[in-house]
């Protein structure tokens, strides 16, 4: 069995120092947005954080 989560979350704001050459897909350069705490293949337990805003 499988569970699929689809959700909306803030992408975060651009950091000023990264304004030039910043792509909308470049999540690492945003602040205050959604961040994953997991890796593919990782085992997780109920209650463990998958990511956070």
């Amino acid at each position, binding site marked *: *069995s499988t*569970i699929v989560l689809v*959700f*909306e979350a803030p992408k975060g704001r651009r950091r000023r120092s990264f304004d030039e050459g910043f792509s909308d897909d470049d999540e690492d350069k945003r602040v205050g947005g959604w961040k994953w705490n997991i890796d593919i293949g*990782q085992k997780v337990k*109920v209650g463990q954080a998958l*990511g956070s805003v």
Partner: protein
Amino acid sequence: LGTAWKNTKIEWYPIPVAAGVGFLGFLQFYRIQERQRQQREQDEFDNEEHTEPGHRPKKRPRIRPEGPWSVQIMSTLPLKFLSRLWGKFNEIELPYYFRIPGFKLYSWIFGVNLDEVAEPDLHVYPNLAAFFYRQLKPGCRPLDPNPDAILSPADGKIIQFGMIEHGEVEQVKGVTYSLDALLGSQQPNESSTHSTRSNIAMSSESPMPSPFRTRNPSNDEEVIRSDEEFARVNGISYTLPHLLSGGTKYPDEPNQGLPTDQSTTSKPSSESEVRADLALANPSRPWWAPAPSPVPRALYYCVVYLAPGDYHRFHSPVSWVVESRRHFAGELYSVSPYLQRTLPGLFVLNERVVLLGRWRHGFFSYTPVGATNVGSIKINFDKELRTNSLTTDTEADRQAERAKQRGEPYSGFAEAYYDAASKVLGGHALKRGEEMGGFQLG
């Protein structure tokens, strides 16, 4: 025979070209006829008017998936029947003295941690189905203290996660399927609703107020106020302490993990907790696409795979409101990582229950996908939902017929709304970590 074989003279003649051309022409003619016949049957199914009483609609043409030979073979098997048979088999009561060695063997094979099982005496479980749907001891799954985190809904393995671009979810590397196919292509509306339970009402505009969204009078730009501004403008309200303490975290609430003991008499109810958490949400949010907002938003997805030995109840990852559910009566292929790699669109083909709602940051959906061995999906707050039942297919056919009578295209799912569950929230409230349901054998 030997003499004839040895003495008969063999003479070779060229096959006339016309015969070869004729054979190929016949083959092509046969193929065209066959294709036209299939198309005619499909059109008849689409245009048929079922007005007479007691009419049984024709069975919908089965969707055949693409994939390697193993998938092709699997697609010919009666997977739902096998799943139901497997479920019945596992409901057979085991002999008392066979239970402990049997469950221990199962645990050894599939890696079940028996120390976490709520019931230490395994004799209590009469069969494998009961053991499979076991509960865990309270507190053995502590919830992450970060109130802004999304929690894992179940024990399992992360198969895929990421951001959804152009409305497509990546199932495996290079294979994608659209969000419309997974969740349903239509925005929930009254005309396409098939309410199936008494406490489920038709959808209406959510009555949830939106105190945090205002318009700037100078440039008519939408502005989201901060929590502090809300506090200053609106004063103290029942929602505010919850919001300021992180929305879902209560200082006096011990982090007990699974709320199996349900000793929540002194704690806020799910509804009040979610109501507090959702004060930031925009009630007039459209379908799953992120609404235009000063804060850039995106859609994210995560796929968690539950192995046979895992705890098979699932929990709410955040505090949210379930507004509707859509039951897609599909097939029941295995959802093992191997098949996820080899069968494109597996989650779109399989039977699934899509729970749609909203959380503090907007749209939220939760989709348990069934499989051959664990085909039954149970939702605790939806007692009338029946998955992998004998009536599932015929119900889907009936709904296709009803949609046709109304002159609408069949959406492919049965939809119900939870509006009546909470007049304020417009749905069923769930708090983070709360048990939502589970997967059952067969």
